[in-house]
């Protein structure tokens, strides 16, 4: 297992008029090893850009991002990263199982390991009975679980999740959050989760990195005082922690950004 080390990350986007817009302003942090790190901030603040930079889909203009293996050696471009997108982004013409093998093939996992891995991760997300089904015949929550299984099946050093519950209805999102939390805890999966939802961050995050918007700049990094198993949304300690987080976020947003 591993963690992500981000140091002095700077990213500009070109504006329509040709000038540059600063998106990430000297962002530095370490993610938790074996746990979930939440990047929390208002919508459009550059969190997703940062996640794309970690995954290699975007290049940074300055700074570096490293996936550091357990023994402390940087893994560079060799690190395996799983990605779970906001909408499931499945290949609708492939069955659930074929969507997973698409990732296995891309990551060059030996074919001998495929059957065992498919079984394990489809069981884990509870979709073994739907392995031959096509995505468009599944519900939104099930599709998102396929996306999760696809991210996990490659057994990544780090799993990146970009607001994976934001497009689901409230009840489905709530159940899927709990399931994801359990799965990540069971696998001791190092995970980076982007969210704009304070309660989600308090529930899922072992470490929470709070951003302010335009440009994204880190304001606060705090570790969750509650263990994953103790986070009950009706528990006063949880509510207290959520309040603290919310206050930090609101204070930082200022009045001009509402």
């Amino acid at each position, binding site marked *: 297992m591993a963690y992500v080390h981000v140091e002095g990350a700077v990213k500009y986007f070109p504006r329509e008029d040709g000038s540059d817009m600063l998106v990430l302003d000297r962002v530095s942090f370490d993610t938790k090893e074996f746990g979930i790190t939440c990047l929390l901030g208002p919508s459009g603040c550059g969190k997703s850009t940062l996640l794309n930079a970690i995954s290699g*889909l975007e290049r940074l203009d300055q700074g570096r991002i490293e996936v550091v293996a357990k023994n402390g050696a940087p893994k560079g471009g060799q690190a395996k990263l799983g990605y779970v*997108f906001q*909408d499931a982004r499945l290949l609708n*013409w492939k069955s659930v199982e074929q969507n997973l093998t698409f*990732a296995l*093939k891309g990551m060059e996992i030996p074919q001998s390991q495929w059957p065992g891995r498919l079984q394990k991760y489809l069981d884990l997300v509870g979709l073994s009975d739907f392995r031959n089904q096509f995505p468009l015949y599944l519900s939104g929550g099930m599709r998102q679980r396929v996306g999760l299984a696809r991210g996990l099946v*490659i057994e990544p050093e780090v799993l990146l999740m970009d607001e994976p519950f934001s497009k689901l209805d409230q009840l489905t999102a709530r159940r899927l959050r709990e399931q994801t939390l359990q799965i990540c805890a069971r696998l001791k999966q190092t995970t980076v989760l982007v969210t704009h939802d304070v309660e989600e961050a308090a529930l899922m995050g072992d470490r929470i990195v709070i951003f302010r918007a335009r440009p994204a700049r880190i304001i606060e990094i705090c570790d969750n005082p509650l263990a994953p198993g103790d986070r009950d949304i009706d528990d006063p300690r949880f509510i207290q922690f959520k309040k603290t987080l919310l206050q930090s976020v609101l204070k930082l947003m200022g009045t001009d950004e509402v």
Partner: protein
Amino acid sequence: MVLDEKTLVANADAGVLAGEAVALPSRTQVGPTWEAAKTVALRVGSILAMLIVWWLLTFIFPPSLIPDPIDTLKEVGAIVNTGQFFSEMGATLRRVGVGFAIAMLIAIPLGIVMGTMKSLENFFEPPVILGLTMPGLVWAVIAIMFFGLNETSAYAAVAITIMPMLAISLWQGTKSIDKELIDMSTAFHASPWSKVIDVILPQLISHILAAIRYGLGLAWKVVVVVEMFGFSNGVGYQVVRGFNVFSMKQVLAWAITFLIVMIFIEFGVIGWLESRVTRWRPKIEAWRR
């Protein structure tokens, strides 16, 4: 929110129970067999209507211009029985098939490249648009002048006539594909080959099928013209022969065999292909009446 949640859940449960107590009224449904029968009846009716119009026209025009439909259909039967149908149609189909395959092999990569790379799009756009505006007849003449009266000119004429149309269809199709899926495949390190085969081509299937339909329509027209110019077999040649002896019956009989083959390809081959390659897509027919 926390305050009311338990009562809300309780109410929802009660609602479900109450709903279950009352039997759901069954939705009035005519059933799929009836729907299918209606579809067939409408299609057969349409063909019958056309035959009746034809038959009525025989009362106005002399048989040399509008032959009797029954006689013409008998002529079709004779063409099929003597085996002429298979040899002539076989020759025409081969020309269309080879020309079509050549056009596809060029148009698919060209369309994908034009849809994905801006610079190549700008480079290839003028020739493709020019090619589209060029009448098939002119291509037929050029091909025959260039290659002479042989099979090659037929293949070339068919290929070059339909290629721009196929390329445009795939080019536009490629531009409309889901870029986010490309990002996804990049995130999972898919190879370029896998991106084309697993991600891009499946999104182009409906564009390819539409292109095949239009392309076939164009290909028939060109191949008949090429055959008319002086080939000694093929449907086009037979039509010219009918014209030379001024036998409308013969011309129409060959035209009808042609239509039968077209219908077989359209509904049989392409329809089968379509249902096979789009089986992942749930049927959404609800909005059509």
